[in-house]
């Protein structure tokens, strides 16, 4: 019995070691946002040069809004861009963008090439606002209700499935709720 006590540290360590080993297959970044159902953090971002409106808490109130964090250097952003464009043009969802750590001229060229579905874009040059929003990487997409509270978050590029099964029902629900 007494010997077992001396064995205990080893057994505990083996347990921790197994957890570490299995931890390699996991992505710790895949964590649901802690900001769900909370108001969007206080922020205010300038617009791209040549654009009128930036992005701040005031812009987010009044309508159900999809906020998409993107950058011209981000390949998955290009992949999801047609889906976002369709959401804005065909489903009438207000989409606003946070341009993450990007050069203004690159972002403008990118939007000219791929189309600009965004009602307005805030420029987050150093990524500080993205940190407040809990953004781990681009692209990420948030859905906010009329009061400017974050209700849904998607990490990585949007897929038609996510849009059909999660975003559109949620938009409908939020619009009818308030």
């Amino acid at each position, binding site marked *: 019995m007494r010997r077992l006590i001396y064995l205990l*540290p080893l057994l505990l360590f083996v347990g921790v070691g197994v957890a*570490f080993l299995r931890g390699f297959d996991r992505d710790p970044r895949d*964590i649901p946002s802690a900001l769900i159902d909370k108001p969007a953090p206080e922020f205010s971002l300038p617009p791209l040069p040549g654009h009128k409106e930036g992005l701040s808490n005031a812009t987010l109130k009044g309508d159900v809004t999809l906020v998409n964090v993107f950058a011209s250097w981000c390949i998955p952003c290009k992949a999801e861009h047609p889906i976002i464009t369709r959401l804005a043009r065909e489903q009438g969802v207000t989409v606003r963008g946070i341009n993450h750590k990007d050069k203004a001229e690159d972002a403008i060229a990118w939007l000219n090439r791929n189309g600009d579905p965004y009602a307005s874009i805030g420029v987050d040059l150093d990524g500080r606002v993205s940190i407040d929003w809990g953004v781990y990487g681009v692209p990420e997409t948030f859905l906010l209700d009329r009061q400017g509270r974050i209700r849904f978050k998607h990490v990585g590029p949007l897929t038609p499935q996510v849009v059909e099964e999660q975003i559109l029902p949620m938009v409908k629900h939020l619009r009818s709720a308030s």
Partner: protein
Amino acid sequence: MIPELGHYALVLALFVALVQSGVPLVGAATGNAAWMGVARPAAIAQLLLVLVAYGALTWAHVVSDFSVSNVVQNSHSMKPMLYKVSGVWGNHEGSMMLWVVMLTAFGAAVGIFGRNLPPSLKARVISVQGMIGVGFLLFILITSNPFIRVVPAPLDGNDLNPLLQDPGLAFHPPFLYAGYVGFSIAFSFAVAALIEGRVDPAWARWVRPWTLAAWSTLTAGIALGSWWAYYELGWGGWWYWDPVENASFMPWLAGTALLHSAIVVEKRDALKTWTILLAIITFSLSLMGTFLVRSGILTSVHAFAVDPARGVFILVLLAIATGGSLLLYSVRAPSLKTGGLFAPVSREGSLVLNNLLLSTATATVFIGTLYPLFLDVLELGKVSVGPPFFNATFIPVAIPMVIAMVVGPFLAWKRADLLGALTRLWTAGVATVACVAIAAYVTNGGGPLLALVGVGLAAWAFFGSLAEFAERIRLFRIPVKDSWNRAVNLPRSAWGMTIAHASMGIAIAGMTGTSAWQSETIQAMKPGDNATVGAYAVHFDRVGAVQGPNYSAEQGVFTVTRDGRHIATLAPQRRSYPVTRMTTTEAAIHTTWLSDVYVALGDPTQNGTAWTVRLYHHPLVPWIWIGSLGMMLGGLVSLSDRRFRVGAPERRRAAKGSLQPAE
């Protein structure tokens, strides 16, 4: 050519380490003095070879040799010289090199200064140290070689992460690693003792100085890191319970426990198996910290570049070192002889309580840090654990710890009188009540109730520790001159304890003050605007451009006044580094030593005429670092105690005529 020499030296060091880990061990087992004698020269040779390798890498950084991949990725020809040198350890490969330099330096130090160690113990300690060296040298050579060349060589480098181009961070890793790696000596001593099958007070006396040295440097490293986070990250916080911070805090907590339990082994020959276990755990936590930071299995704001191959390698090292030593422990520890008995209320008892609480605290941080991983692996969902968890679990353990910290030194060995100890603490009690009352009056009941508890604890720790010292020198009970003589003749370890414990009180006051009573103002300001933070009025004078060696900056000028009196002119900067395309915040801080006024210039808003300005008033915050510095100083003073000095125990024993059995 020089990088190749460094590479070659590193490979040679690996082979020397192999010899060092094998030959002395066999020599100790067979009683062959010549084989045991290999330990010392091997440890010194290994250090020299690693130093050559490290020097070669530093040279490549200093002369900006962009044919070396490591230099390209982390340096730039325009980078200031200080950061060319500190940039060597500001990246994964170089930091592992620094690790090994420290590791071999400690090994060589045992070889050089351990003259009075029994030859077999010395051989075994150095051999175990050699094994750790083998593991890490292999790790560097296989997965993280800093000497790899690039063809063709680019014209210039990618520059070091600007957040790391800062004096606070430049000097923080060497301290931190010296601390982490210093615990390897305690580990090697523990494993050697398990192999020998013998632990005695002499063993504890040899382990303690190494642990003290490691603990002191780790304290300094953690304090520097937190100071850096405070002024460089621009959020005004000083501790975030981030996995990387926790990774350094866990060995510190366990090391603190080890420091205290080793006293019991040294003085009373008790708690032996527990102390051995703590030595193993402390170093294992250091290794685990290295693993967590570099494997990417936990998210953190300041993790190294992540590479799964490196993670697997360190995990294997961890499995061999920790698993192997714990296996040895489970086999050998039950047969270790238990020593002196003691009553629950005694100095030993109080140190056991200290150990229980510190271990609980370590376990709390451990669970909080790894809980997301455990839950994820068990398919129970994703969570993240943040400061609220740590505050809710750590503080309740810390409170009794600090209370007991003061009482413990008043208790006698073997059996003590608790009531008597408490009555001798009445002055500290009165001072504590007075401090709480003053705090309540000054803040006018503002802030949480816990803040007053914090003030009470801080005062109790500070005045209680001084009261213990006063007791020792019989202050005011005998003439002051006699008290002075007593103080001068007190062992350095007593001085060290008082300094460290009282400093802990100072640090707690700082933590409490800034957590409970800080005020912050975050607002968009244009030049000419006014804002207030705490009792201070801040005027935004102007913004100008400043050009640095490898960055350009916007510099705001702010005038801080209090009741119309000019307090300070502060010039925070927002630096942008063109090469890495990153911006950093250089906060400007005015400190009165009682509180800080902190101004950080944030992003320009919408049309570029206003800036998001973060203003903070942090009461008592400098005391966090003053206290930490004091704790480190306490450790160093204690380290200078004559009984730890080379040969001193021998001489004293000889003078007293062998009162103490050597074995």
